[in-house]
């Protein structure tokens, strides 16, 4: 009598059957049959959860079983509804014992013995769809993908990039999500680059920080990195130490394009009328300005300088106002004007500093700076 499992794969079931040690007495002549999980699955779905009967003693291995223990296709995709998420060993329990209260015939188990005629009738779906637009269908069967998911790689994002995940490497999960290309790089090249960075006297922790914030950093060749560091140093006119500091805090400067950086510097100097040393100070304190969009910069500067009347030296002292949202600045400024507390000159009494204006959360801003309640602020917001 053939002992078959109700399997779902035509291609893998033979190996799987061999794996389980569920030998067919008739040998591989049953190759023609596949399993028909569809009717079985549907019935299984309607049935309450049940446990498989596994007899370890039965697993007298045929030769290939051990070797194929880890093969991706050795799984039995039996659809069983369970709640537990962690892998757990299923203790054996016969189906009959579980359902002794039930009047119906006990539901069929995946490992139940069925007659050969039935086995012939079972038709299986292919286990792995030959073509799929997502990695979802493959993730259960590919060890690489499974390990990546366990590392925390967001495969849905990787899919959007439409690149294969190639060689395995030991990197951080989110890092891989952003930069799957790194897996295609040579290990030696990566090591050279890290050595170069070390030679420029970036500490280990700093290098890790830079790499995690700008995942593409290690993809750049040594000459390119060198060129960029030199360019930044020349453009900004800062000392080596300050440039390094800047790059550690904002490594995206090195990986982004260089023309927008140059243009932003020009905008600051020519259009806004900052002096060169002021531009250097601003760029050092808030390097994000160098990669911000020019239109947004212009709008923010226009409101700050022309409407709020803040002079250049104040803006140089608090460049973080350029990073905040214009709408937020507008609302808070108008509220302060309405209360008559819009005083940004440090020489005058009841002075309000710009960084407090933008960085504080709403409640603190209302109580401390504006000395009003948050309900008043909300009512005011509905009148502008």
């Amino acid at each position, binding site marked *: 009598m053939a002992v078959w499992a109700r399997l779902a794969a035509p291609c893998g079931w033979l190996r*799987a059957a061999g794996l389980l040690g569920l030998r067919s007495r008739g040998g591989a002549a049953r190759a023609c049959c596949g399993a028909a999980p569809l009717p079985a699955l549907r019935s299984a779905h309607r049935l309450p959860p049940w446990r498989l009967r596994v007899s370890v003693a039965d697993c007298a291995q045929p030769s290939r079983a051990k070797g194929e223990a880890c093969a991706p296709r050795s*799984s*039995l995709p039996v659809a069983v509804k*369970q709640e537990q998420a962690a892998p757990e060993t299923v203790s054996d329990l016969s189906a009959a014992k579980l359902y002794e209260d039930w009047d119906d015939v006990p539901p069929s188990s995946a490992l139940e013995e069925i007659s050969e005629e039935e086995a012939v009738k079972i038709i299986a779906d292919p286990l792995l769809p030959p073509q799929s637009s*997502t990695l979802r269908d493959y993730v259960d069967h590919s060890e690489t993908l499974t390990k990546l*998911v366990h590392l925390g790689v967001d495969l849905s994002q990787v899919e959007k990039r439409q690149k294969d995940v190639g060689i395995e490497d030991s990197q951080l999960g989110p890092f891989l999500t952003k930069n799957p290309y790194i897996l295609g790089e040579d290990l030696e090249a990566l090591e050279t680059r890290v050595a170069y960075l070390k030679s420029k006297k970036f500490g280990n922790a700093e290098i890790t920080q830079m790499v995690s914030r700008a995942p593409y950093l290690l993809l750049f060749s040594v000459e390119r990195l060198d060129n960029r560091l030199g360019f930044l140093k020349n453009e900004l006119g800062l000392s080596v130490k300050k440039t390094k500091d800047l790059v550690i805090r904002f490594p995206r400067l090195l990986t982004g394009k260089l023309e927008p950086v140059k243009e932003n510097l020009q905008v600051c100097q020519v259009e806004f009328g900052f002096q060169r040393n002021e531009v250097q100070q601003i760029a050092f304190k808030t390097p994000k300005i160098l990669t911000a969009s020019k239109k947004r910069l212009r709008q923010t500067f226009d409101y700050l300088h022309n409407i709020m009347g803040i002079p250049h030296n104040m803006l140089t002292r608090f460049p973080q106002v350029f990073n905040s949202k214009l709408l937020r600045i507008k609302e808070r400024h108008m509220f302060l004007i309405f209360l008559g507390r819009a005083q940004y000159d440090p020489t005058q009494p009841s002075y309000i500093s710009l960084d407090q204006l933008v960085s504080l959360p709403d409640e603190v801003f209302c109580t401390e700076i504006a000395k009003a309640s948050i309900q008043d602020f909300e009512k005011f917001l*509905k009148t502008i």
Partner: protein
Amino acid sequence: MEKTKQWGWSPQWRKCCRGRKRKNTLHPHKERQHLPVAAEQNRQRWLFAVYKPPGVAWNRVRDAVETRLLRELNAAPAWPPRSRIRFLPAASAGPPGLVAVRVPVLAEHRLVRGPRFTQLKIGAGHRLDVKASGVFVLGVGHGNKILSHLYNCHLSKVYTVRGQFGKATKDFSDTGKLIEKTTFDHITREKLERILAVIQGTNHKALLMHSNIDMKTQEAYELAVKGLIRPMGKSPPIITAIRCLQFALPEFQLEIHCLHETQQYLRKIVHEIGLELKSSAVCTQVRRTRDGVFTLDDALLRTQWNLQSIQNAILNCQLRVKTEIEKTMSHWDGTCAPGGTSTSPLG
């Protein structure tokens, strides 16, 4: 008509439904999107109002609300993953063999399939242009259908409009290109109110004309008593009431009740008031304080664009929306209803 347009505005919706518009099927890997509301409330009127700040386009407001809602929905705990039986070699020292192990199905893991909700159908009611601010009605899911019913009710909207005498610009607002400057010392509040009365009178005639009602019938009298005389189809912009709230030269503030208007039309009205008063005026602020049944109190500020506040706002407004639609539709169903829809909105 808002109805045909409101589905196609969002770029994400367009991208997702390319080629599937006619079949009305979902992308095979995306879930059907539903807000977590109890089943018995499924057929309710899911409308709420937000306060649109000035200087922001209305579709950005809509997208921002959608992004925040999606973020909160995806942060909610998901179903525990399905698991399945795999036969793996026994790890510990023991008889070598295979052990049935229950492993979670990774295909349903969040990192593999992506976030559970990727898109929400949020439709917008009467739009506001970039410089205007105020009550902006949005509808979620089933509320989108109710939006079109509300549109067909042709309810009036209330605006507060601030103007300033002495300047005239090309686009009638204070940020436009300056055309001329005039004096305004001769203007008094009485003159202004006289002009406003004239405007209201002419618009009232237009209102009666476009409502297609014979004024000499009993039915017209009943409608007038209930306040239901309004054009139930397309018509040019009509001002049903206009009055002056504040007058402090050179600035003034008006309250305008209107139908089928645009904000630029209101700015043009301010400009024309200036011309009538033998001066010139520009509009400094257009703010919608009421859109049909949604008032300023119902509008949610940016800090309140989260799931809980939106659900509360929806529940608060449901009854009012329902009564208003019933009131309008029940009257017009009996008589001829120009511009109404054939499907019943209540149900």
